[in-house]
């Protein structure tokens, strides 16, 4: 079972939910797909070991063979190749690594080479049997999706995989969430939370993934998120209160399920409910 934890708005509690859910379940994989700033391990403190580089394929031009026909330039939808009167110029950071320019080159002047853009790391905790897989995009690199996709090839289908997704609604979120069995959208009961939640809902509906909402810092803000969920028939699967004890533990980097045993049971119940949703969907 693959569960993505996403949200439109940043800072609503995705990592809190992901980490606490993984610890409450045990025997789980936790994938930190927020590769621009992975932070699950702030709360876990596992010893991480790098096990793989992430590279993308970029073109390398042989100027001897190039006739400046410009087909590579016309082909590239990302404008990563440009034609000057006497040369072809290439912009590696605009390149998505599709390899199309090499395919359309009639002179075979374009070779492909690998460019590193990030790394994958892994840490295992024996007490809870949790495997943390973390992707990190190198500083200055613009494209997060290849790192996320490569990280997700290590999902173990036989266990529960919890995916901590980046915020927003753009490519890295799609890459994190697209292949999941269920998506939990974490929000806060504020106008900003509601606005970004509704954007995230549009994306998840488009991807046709069953989903539910977790309201974090419940008790602050107003009731509009709940009204919205009711109107849109979106299940609210958990409410995490705006609670001093939770906040204090968070500030110390301690996942609250470790100190508040009742929450361990709440998160397990959440997982059982998600399982029911998925099974229900498979039947109908």
């Amino acid at each position, binding site marked *: 079972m693959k569960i993505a934890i996403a949200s439109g708005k940043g800072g609503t509690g995705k990592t809190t939910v992901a980490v606490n859910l993984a610890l409450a379940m045990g025997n789980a994989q936790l994938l930190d797909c927020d590769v621009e700033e992975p932070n699950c391990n702030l709360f876990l403190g596992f010893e991480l070991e790098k096990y793989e580089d992430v590279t993308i394929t970029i073109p390398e031009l042989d100027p001897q063979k190039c006739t400046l026909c410009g087909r590579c*330039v016309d082909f590239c939808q990302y*404008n990563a190749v440009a034609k000057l*009167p006497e040369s072809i110029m290439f*912009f590696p950071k605009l390149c998505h690594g599709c390899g199309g320019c090499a395919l359309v080159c009639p002179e075979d002047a374009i070779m492909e080479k690998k460019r590193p853009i990030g790394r994958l790391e892994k840490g295992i905790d024996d007490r809870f049997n949790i495997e943390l897989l973390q992707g990190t995009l190198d500083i*200055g690199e613009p*494209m997060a999706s290849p790192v996320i996709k490569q990280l997700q090839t290590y999902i173990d289908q036989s266990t529960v995989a919890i995916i901590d997704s980046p915020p*927003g*609604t753009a490519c*890295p*979120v799609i890459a994190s969430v697209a292949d999941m069995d269920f998506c939990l959208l974490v929000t806060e009961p504020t106008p900003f939370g509601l606005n970004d939640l509704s954007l995230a809902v549009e994306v998840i509906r488009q991807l046709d993934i069953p989903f539910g909402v977790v309201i974090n810092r419940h008790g602050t803000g107003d009731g509009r998120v709940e009204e919205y969920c009711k109107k849109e028939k979106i299940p609210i699967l958990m409410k995490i209160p705006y609670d001093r004890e939770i906040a204090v533990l968070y500030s110390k980097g301690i996942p609250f399920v470790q100190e508040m045993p009742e929450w361990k049971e709440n998160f397990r119940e959440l997982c059982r409910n998600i399982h029911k949703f998925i099974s229900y969907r498979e039947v109908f």
Partner: protein
Amino acid sequence: MKICVTANGSGPEAAVDKRFGRCSHFVIVDPDTMESESMENNNSSASGGAGVRAAQDVIGKGVDVLITGNVGPNAFDLLSSADVDMRMSSSGSVLEAIEAYRSGLLDAINIANSPGKQNARRRQRGSG
């Protein structure tokens, strides 16, 4: 000689658009005859690399001088390798910009002065 001014409309009366890659029009003027040609920027809404396309279009027109406000790093590299003289102006009309250039009032753009997309991304996460 050809001078290209980024503008938000066509013709010499149009206002200067300070964006290079995402301006709406390029107005190309011959300062000797003051004849002008306006070209729509087809790449103003490209998701990425708008500056790269725009630079190729401008270079393809054989422009010697470019008057604009901000040039991103990729466009800057292209325009410099084609020896285009980049000059800064971000207000007034195309005609006024040409006059200012002729009077030597416009500063040269010697380094990319806009972050471009790659570096702007941190503020608005998520693309690619």
